[in-house]
Every structure is written in C-alpha cells, then in structure tokens.
C-alpha cells in the first residue's frame, strides 16, 4: 500500500482499519473532501445522513451504548461542529466511547474568523477525553489510531478529530505502521492486591453491607462477576440509573435504585449500612443527595477505573483503581461467604411498609390513563419477549422507567444520565437500531424531549429502519420541571405547559405508523400491536397531566429526607 492517497481517503481507510462500519453525519463545505472519498468505500462504510448534527452525535452514542464499540459521527466546521457539542458533552458525562470527526477551514485560514470557522477543539476542551487538530495528512494514520485507542480504553469517552480542508485534500503515502505516541496514557485495569484484600476483609466483617453498582459494571462486562460476588456474600445490591441491568431486578438480593428518586428502603439502607462497596459509579449528586450526610455510618470501598473519581465527592476508606470486572472477580475469589439474611429482612420489612404508600399509583379524580399503567403493561409484555432494548430520554418518564420496569439484562437500559440531555432518545435509538437490526428498540420519552430531535424520524424512514417503537408519555408539560414547580415553587407553572402537535399524525407524515392511547384498557393492545408491527411506530400515550415521580429528595438535602407524597392540594 505505498500508493499516494488524499487525506480524505486516508481518513476512510483509517476508519475501516479501526473496525468502523457505520458513521452518522451531515456534510458541509469543510468536510466535503471526506464526503467525496466516502463512496469509494461504501461497501465497507455505511453513512447515515441525519437531519441535525446533534442527532448524528446521539445516534453514534446509541450505537456505542448498545454494542460497547466506538460510535462515530461526522460534521462540517462551524455550526456543524458546534451542533455536536451537546452529544460530545453527553458522551463525556456518561463515559461513552465516541469519535467525532469534523472538517475545519483550510490551515491558511485558521484563526482568521473565516466563513464557518469555529475553534471546535477549543470549545470542546473541557468535554473531550482528548482532541486533535490535524493540518498534515501524514499524521492521520497515527491520530486515528490514538483517537480510537483513547476513546475505547480506560474510562471511555469522546475524542474529537478536527481535520483542516487542505489536510483532507493533500496527497501523501500513508504510514500505517506509525506507532502511537501516548507516554502519558496508561489506564490501570488490575486492582491493587492489597487494597482488594482490605476490601474483602471489610466486607467479611460487615454486618450491614451494601453493594452499589453503576454504569462501569455494564461497560466492563462485569454483570456476571457482580452476581457471583453478591450471591457468595449474600450482600444486597443497589443499582444506580446507569447500573440498571447490571444486576437483575427480580433477584432476591436486588433492592432497586438509590438517590433523588430512589425507593425509601434503598435510601434508608444506605443511611444505615456499615460498609458500602461502590463499583463503577461516581457518586453523582443525584445519588448522594447532600454528600456530607451520605452513608454516615459506612466505611466506603470505591472501585473505579478513573483515579480522579475516587475521593472526589465522598471520603473513601478503600480506594481501588481498576476495571470493575477484574476487581470484582479478584474480590469474589478471596472474600468469605456470608449470610446477611437478617439485614436483608430488615430492609424488606421497610420496603413492605412503604410500598403500598407509593402515591404515584393514586389515580386523581377525572384522570383515566396514569403513566404507571403504561410502564406496568410494558413490563408485563416485555417479560414474555426477548431481544429488546429501551432507550429513555430525560425527565419524569425516565425516572418512572427506571423505577417501574424490571431490568434484568445488562445493556437493555440506555439513557442520558450525567448530562441529562433531552432529545437524546430518538436519535440514540436510530444508532441502536442500526447496530442491532434483529432486536426491537423501544424509545420511552416525554412529549418535550421528543420534540427536540424528532426530525430524525425522517432519517429512520430514509434508512428503512423498521425496529424502532416510540412510546411518548405525553402529559402536555415539561413534566419534571412542572413537578418541581408544584412541589417547591408554589405551583407556578412558568414556561412548562406544552401543546404538542398530533404525534400520531406527525408519525404518519414521516411515513411511520402513529397511534394514540388515552384509556388504560387500550395500553396492552397498543404495545403488543406496535411490537409486532413490521415498521416504526409512534404511540402517543396521553397520560394524567399532573402525575408526579415519588419518592423525591429535594435537591441539596440528605437522601434520608424523602418526600413520598406531594403537597396537599
């Protein structure tokens, strides 16, 4: 391969060498040389034309989150690149392996405020794991190798490659053997043996231990190791939002979700436990509440692949830097078997006391369809079916999905957690559907988030994707904000009422099937019908407008202070 290639051809070949099969993007002036080369490789590189760069970025994220492989998105300079900022930030917060390729104005124009020039490496500096500005095509083979290596190893994350137009056009003989030059990048995978044995000792001595599993368990493929450790020690397991699916919710040791919208018994257990093993979670403030009051009696063991997460939010007694699977396996090998049935029974009793008081189930007078009708029906139907993923957006519907659906398998639950990006779900489903054509990709979103990126329904149609089913939990409000306004801001619904279009008709306009459900009796049939339909379906579930997510811990308060009912109205 000693032939001369344009920079654009080298970019395509580098992507193929990294195992990329799909890219999501939109062309434009500064990335045109790349798009000119792309058809030469169309037997190996599938390009999906999105309707907005934000959609392309989230689609690449959805691809990555459901496969564990690096997602790739492409955009031009200026506004094309800045439209990628939100998905890059989202991937940064949720440690998603993403490579964003952007075109840049010619190197002679850099820094001159040229047409469609923005300093995208500068703009994305705090939200990328690393970034490159390439002005010389000879660097491209090494840069692409480094970018994919950095994105997909250690704590995964987004990497940006900004390539000037002249570097895409210039010819050179690519040196595919150019070595990576990353002397400062050496992720740690194996936990320190002394710390692991110290953790095993703490767990063995503990009378009221808990395991908290976060997204790192799913990324590292540690679900089985976690199950092994929990069963061996009898320690109950909490799963965070990103940990949903890391431990089967129907397991006798599974407790549920902690934090702001966690169950009462879970938060109380955290406040009472004497040892807490957090594996692959970063003590997000939505989990800890007021951090200084979190787990006050616990000695804390924190397993994380990123050393900078350890000791960042809460004090840690046993820090273990390493890969979740490797550390859990090492722990399971040496930890003593245990029986925590007394402790578990205590928690279960608390759970029984509170379960019947979950006020979200109360049907206000005059309302017929409650959100939980949809989730409970979905859960019943999903139980009898395999091969599905659920992608949620951000807001009330997202918390209900985490609470009310039983998550049994790693990777079935995908959401925008850290950044909380409304509009994430529809494009992320596009990426997931392309990655997993034989599975059914369910979107559960709100009417607010849906309208932020629903133009990707056109992409879904153009690509002939038939395995996406979208359930809109439509309450005519930006529901979570409305809930806070109801509970904490004297019910002043400022800027939250939302009158959407006819979502069923909108779906039909895009060439998909649209349905509308407003009665509890119609829910099961609609979901079954959509599941079996050969094509994309949008179901508009018109639910009670002022249903709330409970319990809720007011922001900044201790997770011991939960509201389980709304203010009296």
């Amino acid at each position, binding site marked *: 391969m000693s032939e001369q290639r344009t920079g654009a051809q080298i970019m395509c070949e580098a992507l193929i060498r990294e195992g990329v099969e799909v890219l999501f993007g939109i062309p434009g002036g500064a990335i045109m040389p790349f798009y000119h080369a792309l058809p030469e490789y169309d037997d190996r590189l599938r390009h999906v034309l999105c309707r907005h760069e934000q959609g392309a970025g989230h689609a690449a994220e959805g691809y990555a989150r459901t496969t564990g492989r690096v997602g790739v998105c492409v955009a031009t300079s200026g506004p094309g690149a800045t439209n990628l900022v939100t998905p890059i930030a989202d991937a940064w917060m949720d440690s998603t392996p993403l490579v964003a390729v952007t075109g840049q104005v010619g190197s002679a124009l850099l820094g001159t405020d040229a047409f469609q020039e923005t300093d995208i490496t500068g703009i994305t*500096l705090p939200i990328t794991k690393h970034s490159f500005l390439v002005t010389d095509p000879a660097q491209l083979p090494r840069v692409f190798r480094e970018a994919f290596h950095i994105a997909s190893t250690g704590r995964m994350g987004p990497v940006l490659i900004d390539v000037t137009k002249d570097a895409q056009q210039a010819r050179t003989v690519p040196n595919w053997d150019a070595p990576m030059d990353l*002397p400062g990048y050496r992720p740690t995978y194996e936990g320190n043996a002394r710390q692991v044995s110290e953790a095993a000792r703490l767990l063995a001595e503990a009378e009221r231990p808990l395991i908290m599993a976060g997204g790192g368990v799913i990324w590292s493929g540690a679900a089985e190791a976690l199950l092994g450790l929990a069963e061996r020690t009898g320690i109950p397991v909490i799963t965070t939002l990103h940990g949903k699916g890391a431990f089967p919710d129907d397991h006798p040791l599974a407790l549920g979700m902690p934090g702001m919208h966690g169950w009462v018994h879970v938060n109380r257990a955290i406040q009472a436990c004497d040892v807490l093993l957090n594996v692959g979670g970063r003590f997000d403030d939505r989990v800890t509440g007021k951090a200084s009051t979190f787990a006050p009696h616990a000695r804390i063991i924190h397993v994380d692949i990123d050393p900078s997460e350890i*000791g960042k939010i809460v004090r840690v007694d046993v820090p273990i830097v390493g890969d979740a699977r490797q550390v859990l396996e090492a722990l399971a090998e040496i930890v003593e078997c245990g029986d925590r049935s007394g402790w578990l029974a205590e928690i279960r009793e608390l759970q029984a006391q509170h379960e019947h008081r979950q006020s979200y189930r109360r049907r206000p007078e005059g309302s017929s369809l409650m959100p939980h009708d949809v989730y409970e029906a979905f859960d019943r139907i999903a139980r009898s079916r395999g091969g599905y993923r659920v992608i949620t957006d951000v807001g009330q519907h997202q918390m209900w999905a985490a609470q009310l659906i039983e998550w049994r398998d790693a990777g079935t639950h995908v959401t925008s957690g850290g950044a909380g990006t409304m509009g994430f779900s529809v494009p992320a489903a596009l990426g997931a559907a392309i990655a997993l054509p034989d599975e059914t990709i369910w979107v559960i979103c709100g009417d607010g988030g849906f309208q932020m990126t629903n133009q990707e329904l056109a992409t879904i149609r153009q690509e002939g994707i038939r395995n996406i089913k979208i359930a809109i939990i439509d309450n005519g409000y930006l529901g979570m904000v409305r809930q806070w306004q109801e509970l904490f801001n004297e019910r002043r619904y400022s800027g939250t009422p939302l009158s959407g279009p006819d979502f069923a008709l909108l779906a039909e306009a895009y060439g998909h099937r649209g349905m509308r459900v407003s009665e509890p009796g119609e829910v099961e049939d609609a979901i079954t019908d959509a599941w079996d339909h050969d094509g994309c379906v949008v179901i508009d579930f018109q639910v009670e407008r002022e249903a709330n997510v409970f319990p809720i811990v007011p922001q900044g308060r201790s997770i011991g202070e939960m509201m389980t009912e709304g203010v009296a109205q």
Partner: protein
Amino acid sequence: MRQTIAALMQDHPGALNRAISLFRRRGFNIHSIAVGPSETPGVARMTLVVDAEHVEQVVKQLNRLIDVIKVCDLTDQRTLERETALIKVHAPPGTRADIVALCTIFHARILDAGSRSLVIELTDTPATLDRFTDLVRPFGLKEMARTGQIAMVCPAHRERPGILVPAGATSPAVELEPNPFAV
C-alpha cells in the same frame, strides 16, 4: 493554601491550554506558572503554584490529561525554588547609592542604568524576591516582570533511586511516582 506542582507534558499545541483550563474550571487560583523545556526533547516541564485546598484532586485531574506524562506535588518536599525578576526602579543620584547597596546585600545584578533609573535582575526564592521588592518599592518601583517559580527536589532527599518519597506522605491515595526529575 499555596501548593507547588510540577508536571511533565508532551510539548503539543493546546497541551498547556488543557492544563490551565482545568484550574479555571475548578476555581483554583494560579499564583505563578512557568513552562519550558525539560531534560527530554519534546517534553515540557510546567511548574505551578496554586491556591488549592485539595491538591490531590488537582494532581489527579492533571494526570487525567492525555498530554501529561507525570505530575508531582512538591509542596511537602524539600525543594530548591528559584524565580527571576527584572525590576526597573526610580534611582536619581540622591538615592542611587542606597539602591546599589541593597543590590549588593541581595546579590542582585544591575543590568542597565539610565540617568534616573536602574534595571535590576534578581534570581532567588520567590519569598526573597518579595522582600527585595518591598525594600526597593519606597524608592519608586517603575516596572517589574517575574518569570514564575521553578522548583526541583533536593537530591539528598531520595531514598531509592528513581522514587520520590514525599516528606509528609501519610495519605494512602498519594501515589509514589518514579521520579521524572532525577534521571
């Protein structure tokens, strides 16, 4: 609290920007920063003096950057610290002798003289530079430029070759790095 941190980083465009951006984002105030070549070609050495309560987080966040090869917290170690200042001071004939006397005491060099001012160079610890500045200020300090502090661990403080032993290393989270500065 003032902390001194030294970092070795690849001499790439944007590397310094990334490091400094970290401090801005976390609200740490940078007192002084000095960057220049290290003993290894292509590797720059940055010496930072920052106001930070949680220097451990600063070190970890810097380590997280791909361009950064090594980071050392030098705060609690026996180090040699130096900084250079160029000072232009008002020096008419009446006070000139007093200023020259001060320069002699502080081993400062007079680089240039005009009819009414002197330019003085002083290389010493930042604290000594502060003291000298305070003493010449009453004469009329017209202009000053300081390089920022650089620091190096005293060689006698190494217990094993290649390993830095922090004097007050009690926190288990402080990792002992092979000494990048003792090669």
